[in-house]
């Protein structure tokens, strides 16, 4: 597992207040929304803030957000390709 994957899991747990969750409980390919981690629409908005704050990536198309936030893997891929910080 790359550092970015672990870093992402840590900040998701912290930013989205997923207390009682550990980094090793989130699988890289597990869906973040729906049946997986069970995140909701406010979490998605908070992830958009996280992308901008930590990686300098502005997401404004909600459809794009859906694909990017599919799993830790898809997020990490997208960040690698688009990060400005």
């Amino acid at each position, binding site marked *: 597992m790359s550092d970015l994957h672990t870093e992402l899991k840590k900040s998701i747990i912290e930013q989205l207040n997923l207390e*009682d969750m550990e980094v090793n409980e989130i699988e890289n390919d597990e869906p973040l929304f729906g049946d997986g981690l069970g995140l909701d629409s406010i*979490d998605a908005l*908070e992830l958009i803030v996280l992308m901008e704050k930590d990686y300098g990536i502005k997401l404004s198309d909600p459809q794009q957000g859906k694909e990017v936030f599919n799993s830790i893997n898809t997020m990490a891929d997208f960040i690698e390709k688009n990060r400005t910080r």
Partner: protein
Amino acid sequence: MSKQLFIQDSVIIRNGKVIVNGKIIHETDADQKLSSFLKSIYKKQNFKYPKFFKMDSLSKLGYLASEILFKNKEPESKTALVFSNAASSLDTDKAYAETMNDFPSPSVFVYTLPNIMLGEISIRFQLRSENIFLINEEFDPGYYIDYSKVLFEEGKASKIVCGWVDLHNSDYDVFLCQISPGEGYDFNEEELKKLYLPTHE
């Protein structure tokens, strides 16, 4: 002809104590940080509701008090929520304002309305019932009585939870009680005041 109404169970969260029907069920140092106090109630009562951790402190107070009030008996579907406080969501407003000029936080912003707590309680107990959130300078039993009586008379509620859930510069004051026809204390201003501020405390 109006039905006679009575007060049944009540819950108080105040000064590091949780009091149910006059009995202390949980106590910590009064100077403990609010967030740790709220978490200690959650853990001690063995509640399993991860959404708890996502709420702001005001909603946590309302959620915990209602969870304790409904312990062992889920509420009837026509249980209305008649709530009020003095400071609205001002603590959370200030927290949001701190994020505002930097990266405005949607998950904080959403809690900058006092009635979000009613949504949280409704979601937890699947209540699709009558709701209202009023703001008064202080606990004012008359409004609960007048508003609740009309809800009963018009058949819009079979039970009502009256709630005072106030949070102001981290000072908290919570009082919830359940009202219905049947038995209990008389539903009047004097009894409500006595239950809200027990003299033996």
